[in-house]
């Protein structure tokens, strides 16, 4: 399989006010095309910094990120980002439909793509509402619809479900798995939730504490067909979960 995302020796040091903060020391990993990789780490591990560097929203201080072989220096065309702050990443003055259409409106048949994306996330009925008329979970669905309508080669998700309640969260996790399997897109999913990372991912990258490196690359050997109830209560799940959990605890202690 071809490499989609290639992060090679990425480093990021924030400079300013006489104090340099080394957020990321040396991150190297590859994501294959069509993979669903979760990135998990203790809070303050520079997860968001990593994601912003990959997305081309932040300049790195060393190393390189390549998307489909092309170095990322600015937000690349084949990438979509779903942010944690759904309420702030949707345009409140546009309807749900227009929010999804805006990034793709120069493409042919963009209306149909938007329609299909909204249907895929189960929001066809709310297309003419404004984002603020919807619940938090529905707003995040809009952001996901916008991302998949964009047809990115890599979809980055930055703790997208951190701010929604537990039940909505479970639904949204299943939605991500369903969309990923149906559309065959590459997904990098950043989270601080260990259970979520194991439930969603094909493998889990565990980050160390700051300055960040990749502590471990844990394969998730669970069946493709996953359900909240059965998967989460299976012995295999528990084993991987405790493995990741131990690694994260270790990462916390090392600081």
């Amino acid at each position, binding site marked *: 399989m071809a490499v989609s995302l290639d992060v090679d020796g990425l480093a990021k040091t924030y400079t300013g006010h006489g104090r340099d903060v080394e957020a990321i020391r040396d991150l190297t990993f590859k994501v294959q095309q069509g993979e669903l990789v979760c990135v998990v780490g203790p809070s303050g591990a520079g997860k968001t910094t990593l994601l912003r560097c990959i997305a081309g929203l932040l300049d790195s201080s060393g190393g390189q990120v390549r998307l489909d072989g092309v170095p990322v220096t600015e*937000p690349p065309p084949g990438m979509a980002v779903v942010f944690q702050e759904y309420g702030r990443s949707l345009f409140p003055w546009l309807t749900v439909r227009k929010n999804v259409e*805006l*990034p793709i409106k120069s493409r042919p048949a963009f209306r149909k793509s938007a329609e299909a994306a909204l249907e895929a996330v189960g929001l066809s009925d709310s297309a003419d509402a404004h984002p603020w008329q919807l619940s938090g979970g529905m707003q995040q669905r809009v952001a996901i619809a916008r991302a998949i309508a964009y047809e990115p080669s890599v979809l980055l998700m930055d703790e997208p479900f951190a701010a929604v309640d537990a039940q909505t969260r479970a639904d949204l996790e299943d939605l991500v798995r369903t969309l990923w399997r149906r559309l065959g897109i590459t997904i990098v999913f950043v989270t601080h939730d260990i259970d979520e990372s194991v439930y969603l991912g094909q493998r889990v990258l565990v980050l160390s504490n700051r300055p960040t490196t990749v502590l471990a690359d844990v394969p998730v050997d669970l069946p493709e067909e996953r359900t909240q109830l059965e998967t989460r209560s299976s012995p295999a799940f528990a084993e991987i979960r405790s493995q990741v959990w131990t690694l994260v605890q270790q990462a916390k202690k090392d600081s």
Partner: protein
Amino acid sequence: MRRVLLAVALPAVLIAVWWVVSALAGSFFWPPLSTVLAVFPETWNADRIVGDVLPSLARLAIGYLIALVGGVVLGVAIGSFRTLRAMAEPVLEFFRALPPPVLIPVIALFAGYTGWTSKIVTIALGCLWPILLNTVDGVRSVDEVLRDTARSYRLGPVDRFLHVVLRGASPRIVTGARQALSIGVILMVISELFGANRGLGATIVQFQRGFEVPEMWTGIILLGLLGVVLSVLFRLVENWTLAWYHGQRQAERKG
């Protein structure tokens, strides 16, 4: 029904008080309201409306629109570029501190007292500052996540200007435009006090100098009524452009 009653109650009381007190006062400078209302139709006949009122309103409209377009364009530029902002801020503070009527004699030196130009320039200059300064603040307050979203979806400069910057700043632009409107009405009158022979403000001054006291009062009433009409029109435009903003704020208060 109740709201209409509440809105009408106080004006009705004030008019009644005016009516009774002015009838009893018997003062030359404060004629009975009945006399004032009796001369209203003949004072503001078709000739005065076409020759004085409409030209005044046209100058207000032209000056205000120039200020609106200029203020928004300059404000977006200054708000978007840090270097420009650092350069412009002290100058803006200086010009903002000047009371606009002070400029009338200066403007008149260049554009003449009697023509339209000096009056339009006066109105435009006075209205410019609140719009400009509020636009700068509005542009700076556009949400970071929203900007990141626009960047990662690679929205073009036109889309970014129209859909992110302008709409994001629009609540503040409207605030500035509302302040500018009342300044504009004041300047419309004041700009005619210096050496103009026609126009709403000039007519009122002529009545006052000619001791046509009831007619002078009709002019003041007419100005007040115009103010009410303008503010209602403004409210309509505001409700139309900022429906999303009011809706969002309401949703936040409930949530």
